[in-house]
Every structure is written in C-alpha cells, then in structure tokens.
C-alpha cells in the first residue's frame, strides 16, 4: 500500500511539473526591487555587514569539521594508492582543504587551484605546472601538447610528485568538456595526486565513463555548513550593485546570448584593439572605420543596424564610446588586454 501511495505521489508530481511548465504565464506578484525604496548594497558594504553578523551554530560546525579532519591521513594513503578524492556536500570546503594543505602538504610540492576565480583557465593551470614545478619556460601551441610534455616529464622522472588541490572543480570556467578532459588526463598520472571539491548539484553530469575512469574518484561527503564567502564573492547576484571591470566569464556569457553577426562585430573590435595594444595613444576605433570593416565582412548592411548593435553593447557595458578632439566617435572595449586575449582564444576553440 505504501508503495502504491508513493507511486501515486510520484504521478502527481509529474503532472504538477508539466502543469507548471505548460504555460508561459507565471503567477507571481509584480513587485520589483526598485519599489522597495531601499538602496542596493554594493559588494563592500555587504561584506562589512556580514562580518558583523554572527555565524549561527559555530560550535556544531566546528565539531563537524573536526570529524572530517580526522580523515586526513586516510586521504593521504588513498591518494598514494592511485585514487583521487572528490569532496561534496553543503558548505564551503575551502577551509577544510586549506587545513589539509597546511597540516599534511607543507613539505611537498603542491598546487592550489581556485576554480571559483572567474578568469581561471586550464591553460593557466598547465602553465603553472610547467613553469613552476617543472621549471620549463617554453611556450606551447595548445594545451594538448603541453599535457603531453607534462606526461612525459612525469613518466621519466619518478621522483616528481605533485599534489593538486582544486577548489570548485565545477566552476563556470572549468566545467567545459575540454577542460575536464585535460584535467582528467592529468589526474590519471600516477605521481599526480588530485583532491577536488564540487558544489553544483549537477556537477557529476560533466563526467562520462571515460573521464570517470581517468579520474578514479573516491567520493567523500563533507558537509561543512561553512558559508561560501570566497566562492560567492564572484557570483554576480542580482541584488548586488555591479562594480569594477568586466570579468571574462560574464563577457563570455553575454556574448553567448547574442546573434552570430553581433558576435562577429564584437570580435572585429576586439581584434583591432589587440593589434593596437602596444600603442599607448590609441584612441580606439572610429565609428566610420569600424562601419567600413563591418561592411566588408558582411556583418552589417547599414549604418543604422550597426548603431543599434552598438547601443546594445553599450547597455551591457561591453564597449565605451569616447569623442575625440576632432569630434569623431571612438569605440573602446573597457576590458584589460589579457582577458580579451583569453576571450578570443576561447571563441576560437568554440568555433
């Protein structure tokens, strides 16, 4: 009877789901934050306010963490036996991993990767391995070559050992198929030991059979209830006022929702800006030149469409216009050059 009951409940749930998703009409009130006559908090004041608010249940959380810390030596053993460790559960696992690092890895070579950092790429992880661990300054054409080089070095020299700690393996920038593939191959090397933490509920979706077997995970539940301080500081919430320059992840995000032509327009501008990056007095691309170039690339067909497109960019704070001394409008992307380079590379990969 209980089972039947459950089945019925399941059936109801399914029906409810389709009911909720059938119509595009949503029944919520129309109130908006603007009407709340409350100033929006910015990042700094938010931080200050939260610092003053006491953390609830500190004692219990400490108990919980001590339980997890008792597992450290076991982790070490299992890492050495060829397993890699992944931590899941509610709460930030940053402090836990930090503690693991300071208590056990002090003497050995280790690398900490802050996955939640919005401009991290696999390239930068690989670079830090080749440059700082292997002392190789050479550049590589693509990550695959670099990976091959690393594999070769680690296979040749059995005394090399490396611990890699990745906070938030499932973050925006690392969750791509290629990045995961490379990280998995890296972690399958016997002298590289990987400990990672995941938070997103759908994180396991990014691994298929082959990757899972490369990773060779051992799962550990470490529910800490610690607030995600560092991790969410980069998460641009709706409620927080935007400040500072654009991050790579948001740039990519916005661009992905645009049409192909719009992306092409932005690309053109970015390429132009990169070409002129060594010239400090470069005022930006003038509108007329830009229009000409766009026409040649068949991206726009009239002055008006380009203007409309540029207005959209402006609304998203992707470009800035400046009027020069001669009254001509100049277009600039207010993003630093390295981010722009990364962005173009990423685009190339996607295409």
């Amino acid at each position: 009877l209980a089972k039947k009951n459950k089945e019925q409940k399941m059936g109801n749930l399914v029906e409810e789901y389709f009911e909720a998703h059938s119509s595009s009409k949503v029944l919520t009130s129309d109130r908006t934050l603007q009407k709340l006559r409350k100033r929006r908090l910015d990042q700094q004041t938010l931080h200050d306010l939260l610092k003053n608010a006491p953390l609830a249940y500190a004692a219990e959380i400490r108990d919980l963490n001590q339980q997890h810390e008792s597992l450290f030596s076991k982790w070490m053993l299992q890492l050495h036996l060829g397993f890699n460790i992944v931590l899941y559960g509610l709460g930030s696992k940053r402090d836990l991993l930090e503690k693991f690092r300071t208590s056990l890895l002090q003497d050995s070579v280790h690398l900490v990767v802050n996955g939640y950092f919005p401009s991290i790429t696999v390239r930068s992880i690989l670079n830090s391995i080749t440059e700082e661990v292997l002392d190789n300054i050479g550049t590589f054409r693509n990550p695959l070559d670099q990976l091959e080089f690393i594999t070769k070095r680690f296979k040749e020299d059995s005394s090399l050992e490396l611990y890699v700690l990745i906070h938030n393996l499932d973050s925006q920038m690392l969750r791509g198929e290629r990045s995961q593939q490379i990280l998995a191959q890296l972690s399958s090397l016997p002298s590289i030991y990987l400990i990672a933490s995941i938070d997103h509920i759908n994180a396991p979706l990014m691994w298929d059979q082959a990757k899972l077997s490369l990773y060779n995970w051992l799962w550990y539940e470490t529910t800490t209830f610690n607030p995600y301080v560092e991790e969410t500081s980069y998460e641009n919430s709706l409620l927080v006022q935007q400040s500072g320059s654009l991050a790579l992840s948001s740039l990519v995000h916005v661009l992905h929702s645009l049409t192909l032509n719009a992306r092409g327009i932005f690309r053109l501008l970015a390429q132009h800006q990169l070409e002129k990056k060594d010239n400090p007095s470069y005022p930006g691309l003038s509108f007329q030149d830009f229009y000409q170039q766009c026409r040649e690339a068949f991206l726009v067909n009239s002055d008006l469409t380009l203007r409309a497109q540029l207005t959209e960019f402006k609304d998203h704070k992707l470009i800035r216009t400046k009027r020069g001394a001669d009254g001509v409008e100049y277009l600039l992307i207010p993003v630093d050059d390295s981010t722009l380079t990364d962005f173009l590379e990423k685009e190339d990969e996607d295409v």
Partner: protein
Amino acid sequence: QQIQENLNKQLLDNLLSFLSRSHSDFQEKTTEWTCKMKFREIPTAALVLGVNVTDHDLTFRGLSDVLHNNITPYVALLEAKDCPGIKNLMQKLMGQLMNCDIDVDSLEDEDCVQVSQNRVRCSMPSLISWYDSVTKKTDSETPRKKRNSSSRHWQSPPVVVIFKDMESFTTKVLQDFIVISSQHIHELPLVLIFGIATSPMIIHRLLPHSVSSLLCIELFQSLSCKEHLSTIIDKLLLTSRFPFKLGVKVLQVLINIFLYHDFSVQNFIKGFQLCIVEHFYSQPLSVLCCHLADVKERIYSLSHDQCENIRRLPSFRRYVEKQESGKQIELLINDSFLKEETEKLLEDLHVYHENYVQILRCLHVFTSSLPKYPLGKQIRELHCACLENRVWETEEYESSLQLARMLNKTDLVTMLQQCVEILMSSSGKEFDRAVQKLKEFLTQFQNLEAEASQERDVSVSPQKELQKKTDLYHLQKTLLELKESRRSKKLTKFEMLRFEVVDYIDSLVRRYLVPADQRTLHEVVYFNAAAVLRGHLNAAPRTALHTALNNPHWYLKNQALRCDGGGISNKAPDICIVYKLHLECGRLINLVDWLEAFSTVVMAAEEPNADAASSDQVDDVIHARFIRAVSELELLGFIKPSKQKTDHVARLTWGGC
C-alpha cells in the same frame, strides 16, 4: 601496508594476465587476418567491443603488442580526443609511425631529425600550406619510408592504424582521412582497425556510401563483459590463493554497480582494490589476513592490545560462550593460550575456505542445469546465496532439490563425473571419502545400465504372453494387471539411487557451505562494510545536499534544529530557510516576496531576544544575509537569474530536490 601493497600487486598482476589471455585468441584472429589481406581497397577490421569503454585500453595495448611482435606492421593508435581535426590526426599518426619505425629498427640518427621537422611542419597554421604539407607528407615521405623499410623487410608490411573509439571521432575527419589514404593505398598499404562500442551499424551511420565503399570491412566480436565478470569472480573470489575475502553485502554492491551502472571490469577491480585498502586500514586484526604459512609468526608477534582486540570480536565472543568455564577464563586472561587457540581457529578457517569452494562448484554443477535456475545461473549468484544465510533453509534451494530429484540418468551421470573431477583436483584430504562415495554412485549407475538391458528382456515377456492368448477375457485381465502393476510399481532401482545421490549432495552442502559470518574469527579475512564502499564509489551528492538543506539537524546536532516534517524551523541556518521558502514556489520566484518572507521568518526568531530598536540596522543585516543565502543557492545550482520578468529568478529543480 606492505603486505597490502604486495597483495594488491599480486592481485592486479593476476587480473592483467588473465585479461590479456582472454583477449589473445581474439587478437590472434585479427593478426592472422591482417597478414592475409591483399590491398585493393583499404582493409578494415571492425571490433565490436561493448559499452565498457574504460576496459578497452588494455585490449588495444595488447593488440598493438601482438601486432608488433609478429613483425607485421607499424602500428599507430589514434584516440578521438587527440584528433579534433585532420591536421592533428595526420600529425599524431606521423609521429606515432615514425616512433614505431625507430623502435623497430632502432635507427635514430636520421629519423629523429625527421620526426622533429615533421612536427614543426605539421603545425603550420595557415590552411593552404597545411594542405600542401599534408600532400607532401603523404606523397613523398610516407611512401618513401615505406620503400625504405620494405627493402629491409621480407615483404612490404602493412601499416596498421587503430581508431580506438570510433563513435567519438568527428565524421568529417574520419571521412577525409579515409578518402586521403585510399588515394595512396598502392604505395602505402594501410590497414584500419575500428574499435566500436555500440553496434556495426555505426559505421554506416558515420560514413556515407561513397566513403564506406572504399573500405573492405570484416567484423570481429569480442567477449561480453559479463563473461569477464564471471571469470574474474572465479579467479579472484573462489580461490583459496588470496587470504582476503569479500562479505556478501560488499559483493552485492560491487556486482550491482557492475550490472546496473557501467559494465566496467576496471571499475569492479577498482572497487575490489578499495575494499582491500579499507579492510587493512580500518580493521586492526587484518594483520592476520595472510597465507597460512605466515600466520603463526604473526600471531606470536601480537601485542597485548591486539589480543584484546581479538577478544572483542563478536564472533570470538560467541565462540567463548560455547566453551566450558575453565577454558573461558583461560581464553579471556591468558594471552599465550589465546594465541594458540587463535592459530587453530585460523587454520580451521582456511580449511573451511578450501572445502567451501569445491563444494560450491559441485553444487553449481547441479543447479546450473536445472530449468528456470532457482538458485541462479551463474556461480556468483550461488556464492551470494550461500554467504547470505544458510542456503538449505531457503525456498529456492528446496525447489532446486525437488527438480534435481527428477533428473534423467545421462545428465546425472555427467554431473557426477564433473563433481568427481572437481573434488579430485582439490588437494585437501577431506574429500577422499566424498570422491569414493561418488565413484561408487557412478559404478552403480553403470551396473544399472546393464541391469536395465536385462530388464527390457523381461518386460518383453508379458507382451509375448499377450500375443499368445487371444481370447478377449484374458486379454482384458492381463491388461488390467499390467496397468495395476505399473501404477503401484515400486520405485525402480535407478530412482532409488537418484534420491540417494541427491541426499548425499544435500548433506555435503549442509556440512560445508555454512555461511562465513557464522565462523569464528571471520572478521579477520572478510570485509563487510558495504555502506562505506557504496558511499565512496557510488555517491549521491544531490541527496547529501538535500538532507543538509532540508534537515540540518542530521548534521548539526543541536536540539533547536529538531522539527517535524515539512515545517520551517526559524532557527535553522539562513540557507536552509531560503531553500525551504524556495521549495514552496513554482517555476519563477519573485525576489522581493522571497526577501520579505525570509525576513518575516528570521524576525520571528530574533524577536524574543532583541526588540526592534534599531530596525533599520537589523533590516540591513537581514538583507545582507538574504543576499548571501541566495547567491549560495545560485552557486549550488538551484536557481538562476531569469530575464523573463524583472527581479525574478528561475528554479532549476523540481519536486523534493
């Protein structure tokens, strides 16, 4: 630890050798075939390997080794992840072939230079020069190499290119490669091998007719992974070579992961490895888990604490309780007496294992041929059933015995012969009697056969009588008599014997197949923590998150958090309150309403301690806490900002989680 690593290694070696052996005939077939091929089209072997992609690595490595050793070809292994474009593919292919060349000929001076040159040229980014270089490469260099080497070798050996995972290659790359290489097939005898995970249909799906007509495909089938599993279980669990054993629950978990999730032998082995690690790490008495020869030494080096550990084992306590009081005291106090006793018990355990395996196999011979397989078809199912509880008390066993009593003679005889073989192969003296008994049965059967032929002669006679007497009355009478006699006929000798055999087998089962956890000191060699294993191998992050958010009391042992069912305790951590509130909403959530609901709940919690003196300040703090909680939920993937309506977020989950 050292023991454990030894054991680990031993085990893995065993597995590897076994796996490569199981593939060898399959590989040999392929090799033979590659030798035979004449090249007008590109000869292609399609290996259908099954969905357990992770295990194929070993197969391919073995295959390329075999191909290498039989000096046929240069072998290149290509993986889809290395070849996103034809450029990378060619580059990789050239690199590997060149390396092969060096390996085989050990000619390093020239070729080394060439390899590096080649790589540089391969990487030239611009499209046109790339095409030039590719044509140059294929036109001038590979054939030259071909000619060079063919002059050195006894015949022109084919170049074998293995595509490890056919499904994940890009269609275009594959097609281009085939078309390109088909142009040069006369100068460069290529042989392609596709590793296919699904079905051969995929070749026709990936390649259009024009391309697949360039190929001459032959299909090869590999062993199914279930057979692998059963052989592995056979080799690993049902031997007395390894002292370490798995408990029922653990075995079931491992088999379930295999059968219901991934079909991957590699993962099964990984799980087994983990069991070993866990066992030797957590169980203090696992030192004693070793071969019988080492046991004595180790027992005598035990410290007092370890002896105490032995005394604390539940199975040992049960054992002590059964002894008389004098011995009990001695066992509980005197360490050296305990050690002697332990040694005896461990020896018993070893003997038990050996006997267990043999009898299990015998029983399997019987049960595996029964209709409907009441005790399972595979030996692993039988093994699980025997470990789980007393097998002779189960219904399935009862029904299988009944079925066994109805077996016909030829089957029974062959089965008995098999049993005898199995028992003979075991070294223990224990079975001499059993073997004798079974042999006796066999001879009796042979006798029966002889008797049966005589009997047939006898049975002919009444019929003859029938023919003699022709009058109706007598006929009727004799017929009735015959019928009567047939009905009330006592069991024939054969049937009697059959019962006897079955009963004997039954008795054997009862004697030797006692489940392991009823033996004393079984904790030393059996690993039984299934929950730990499942947690590590087959984790459920979503469930963990759900319980943490729904029921924080589970983790934070605080009385204030205890609440019943679906209600929201207003003392829970912020994120739990926000989560509970979000569960009540539909598809979209209005941030303002959400904030207000949250502040109401939190205010209710704080009202008792602080009256709303500085309400503005408190408001700000609550606002900040709300922002933190919402962004945490966003990080966890429960919600995402939505553009459908201003200041709304969309829910990404449905139902409970």
